[in-house]
């Protein structure tokens, strides 16, 4: 069981940071509901607020790690230009996608949108983390601030989910692959 170095980095970018961030949105929504709803009597203690701040700053950190790894590590491998006359484009995902009308839109729409849209996620989630830290105990009463936090969280989810979907699909049709092999486990070849 082996994986190439570029595959491993792409997995860390997409599943380590991106998918973990997507999972965290359900917890964020539940926390915001508990903080905001007038039908819940809960008033967070000082320790609760510290934990909530840590959770939302953790989400913002995951978003920054996802976009920085994506833009500055994986994307340069993705868009590398093949040498003139190259026939095997498997090491050049963008060129591979663009070489067929059946796959070119995965780049033209998928990657072209993803590479910009994804940046809305760390920006909005940083804002959410800061707002939760400042207004955690006042969200029940401050409707405008509460709507702001919810709106920015929805923006963060959209800007994480859509790039995540396109990232998964791009990696199905043109995986970012190469570099030294990392052996995860030794096995034996067999028929069944």
């Amino acid at each position: 069981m082996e994986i190439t170095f570029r595959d491993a980095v792409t997995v860390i970018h997409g599943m380590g940071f991106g998918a973990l961030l997507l999972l965290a949105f359900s917890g964020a929504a539940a926390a915001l509901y508990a903080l905001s709803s007038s039908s819940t009597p809960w008033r967070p203690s000082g320790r609760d607020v510290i934990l909530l701040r840590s959770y939302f700053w953790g989400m913002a950190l995951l978003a920054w790690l996802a976009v920085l790894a994506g833009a500055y590590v994986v994307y340069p491998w993705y868009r590398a230009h093949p040498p003139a006359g190259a026939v095997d484009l498997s090491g050049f995902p963008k060129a591979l996608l663009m070489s067929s009308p059946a796959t070119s839109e995965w780049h033209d729409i998928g990657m072209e949108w993803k590479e910009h849209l994804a940046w809305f996620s760390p920006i909005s989630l940083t804002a959410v983390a800061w707002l939760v830290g400042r207004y955690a105990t006042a969200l029940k009463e401050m409707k405008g601030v509460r709507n702001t936090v919810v709106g920015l969280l929805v923006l963060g989810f959209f800007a994480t989910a859509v790039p995540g979907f396109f990232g998964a699909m791009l990696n199905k049709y043109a995986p970012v692959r190469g570099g030294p092999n990392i052996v995860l486990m030794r096995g034996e070849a067999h028929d069944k």
Partner: protein
Amino acid sequence: MTNSDTHPTNGAAAATLLSVGLGGLVLGILALAGDALPAVAKALNIWNPTGPLAGVTLAAILVWLATWLVLARLWSARTLNMSLVGGVSAAMILAGLLLTFPPFMDLLQGK
């Protein structure tokens, strides 16, 4: 001002929201400009392996953070009309999102 004796003012939240809106709008405008104008794409290409993406996002982040810093200093002690700030910010965010959407970019460029 309302509730300023028991709750923080909403000025800091307004500053945070409006700065996200402006940062998002700048991101969209620069993404479109980089796609449509080769001279802009060249100017934004501050690190060749990523092409214009690094310049587009760095500029948007700088605008977002600078706006946030300035507005927070100006508004943190004030209570503002959040509906107005929210409406303006939502419009800028939606415009920014649309301007990053490739079919909309192509439509604007007549492609």
